């Protein structure tokens, strides 16, 4: 099975919406790659514009956020904007339904952890790398800070969503089955 994970970036806010992930003015693009520079362009964290060109952001393959991530519009462009930037996992306390389904439909992961587990991830020191094992249902977060112990959390994926990830997405799954 495909492996998921990599360097993590932390977005410390609830209710990050799809307009912030990819503003509507870029929805005129018909190529997913064209979305690449605009990921999280309108995001505000603590009321301030987020730097979407930082080194940490460029390297990130995992996003960690708080509750109700991906609320708002149905635009799958939000998921594609992550995908074309090499991000294959979003970890949050909860997701908006359409965004969550769009992630699994594209064969990438939206993982829900409990509020205190998300808080523990945010409290980690150093640079964090996350590894996700779907078959074990285990998420491991390791730090480059030797004083920071690795954190492990088990998670459960909806079995159907897991099948979509294995199939490579919903179109592939539905094409075979229906």
């Amino acid at each position: 099975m495909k492996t998921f994970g990599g360097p993590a970036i932390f977005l410390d806010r609830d209710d990050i919406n799809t307009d912030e992930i990819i503003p509507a003015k870029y929805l005129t693009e018909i190529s997913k790659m064209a979305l690449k520079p605009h990921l999280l362009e309108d995001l505000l964290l603590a009321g301030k514009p987020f730097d979407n060109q930082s080194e940490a952001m460029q390297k990130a393959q995992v996003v960690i956020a708080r509750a109700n991530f991906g609320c708002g519009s149905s635009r799958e462009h939000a998921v594609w904007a992550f995908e074309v930037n090499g991000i294959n996992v979003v970890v949050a306390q909860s997701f908006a339904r359409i965004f969550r389904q769009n992630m699994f439909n594209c064969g990438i992961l939206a993982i829900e952890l409990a509020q205190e587990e998300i808080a523990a991830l945010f409290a980690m020191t150093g640079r964090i790398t996350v590894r996700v094992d779907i078959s074990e249902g285990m998420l491991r977060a390791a730090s480059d800070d030797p004083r920071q112990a690795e954190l492990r959390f088990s998670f459960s994926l909806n079995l159907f969503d897991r099948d979509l990830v294995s199939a490579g997405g919903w179109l592939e799954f539905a094409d075979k089955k229906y």
Partner: protein
Amino acid sequence: MGKTIAQKIFASHLRDTPTSENMVLDLDVVLCHEITTPIAILDLMEKGMDRVFDPGKIKAVIDHVTPAKDSKTAMQGKIMRDWAKRHAIVDFFDIGKNGVCHALFPEKGYIRPGYTVIMGDSHTCTHGAFGAFAAGVGTTDLEVGIYKGVCSFRSPETMKISLTGKLGTGVTAKDVILAIIKKITVNGATDRIIEFGGPLLESLSMAARMTLCNMAIEAGGTSGICPPDRVTAEFLWPFIKDEYKNLDEAVNDFKKWHSDSDAEYVESLEIDVTALPPQVTVNFKPDQVRDITEMEGTPVDQVYIGSCTNGRIEDLRDAARILKNRTIAAGVRGIVTPATPLVYQMALQEGILAIFMDAGFCVLNPTCGACLGMSSGVLAEGEVCISTTNRNFNGRMGKGGMVHLASPYSAAAAAVTGVITDPRKFL
């Protein structure tokens, strides 16, 4: 145990239950617009799957940016046009006949009680006003819908919101739904359907019910849904008159899409609207809502009246009541976009467009336009707009702009004074 409306619709459309938590439903209608559909079309073409499950069940429109504003939006329109032609999709609405999808498709009678409906647009929940299960989906779900006529859902639960009391003068369905979102918050209905009910709902027009259901998604809801009744049957009558002997027969038939008296809800709320004042949002989340009396005096640069939330003839009539014999305050820009060509024509014939123009409004063709900051009224950094639309996210109508969501009455009142104003003063 009894069933909710949604559970009855699910049971009658169930294709598969891949797990106990998931269901795959057969679709009655797949709605398409030019922002989320072209990528689905191109992907299907690339994969050698360029087919549609049933051209009669696909309804398509160019509405978000129309007329095209640049080469990219022109290409999105062209991809839609070519595709509709290639697959003989008859119900395709191009320039001259096009309007905001969630106003246009109901007007054409495409949405019926008991239907399953998807669209690559989060405000698809609007169509639940007809007693349908209607959900916004992403492009991949849309693609599968176009190709196979099915869609998967993690089975949603239903919460019931009973509306009681009487709406005060100058208070509308928009104020009610803003108050509801404030109460239940932006994720209060995630993975849930909001079933509206109660004596007040029975007295509301289809336009008002669509306004309520339209913003279910702003509370995270999968769909809003209203039990179909006489109001629904009267609205649909021109389209269903050959199927029923008379209106009463249709009303009775629609009762099969009512929740059973012993249906179970995950949560039930009762909201008495009698004392509710007009509502307006503050800041960047649709649950950040205040009584308009607390917001009075906030200056606005632009007033926008239109959209799938409040661009129907009833909404334009409301605004015109305040704008009649009045003019826009100096320095304020007013934009009105009737949601469909029919709304435009009615407004023209009723003298409403003349009232808007005499007041100093710019009358646009039907389009989604500035609601999502794509065209036709984008805000500059630091500008403020009072808008009858549904989202106030940061950057929504233009980077650095602020959007205050409100009813057509409240928007019109702000146009006249140049600041957020309690519209009841003018009524």
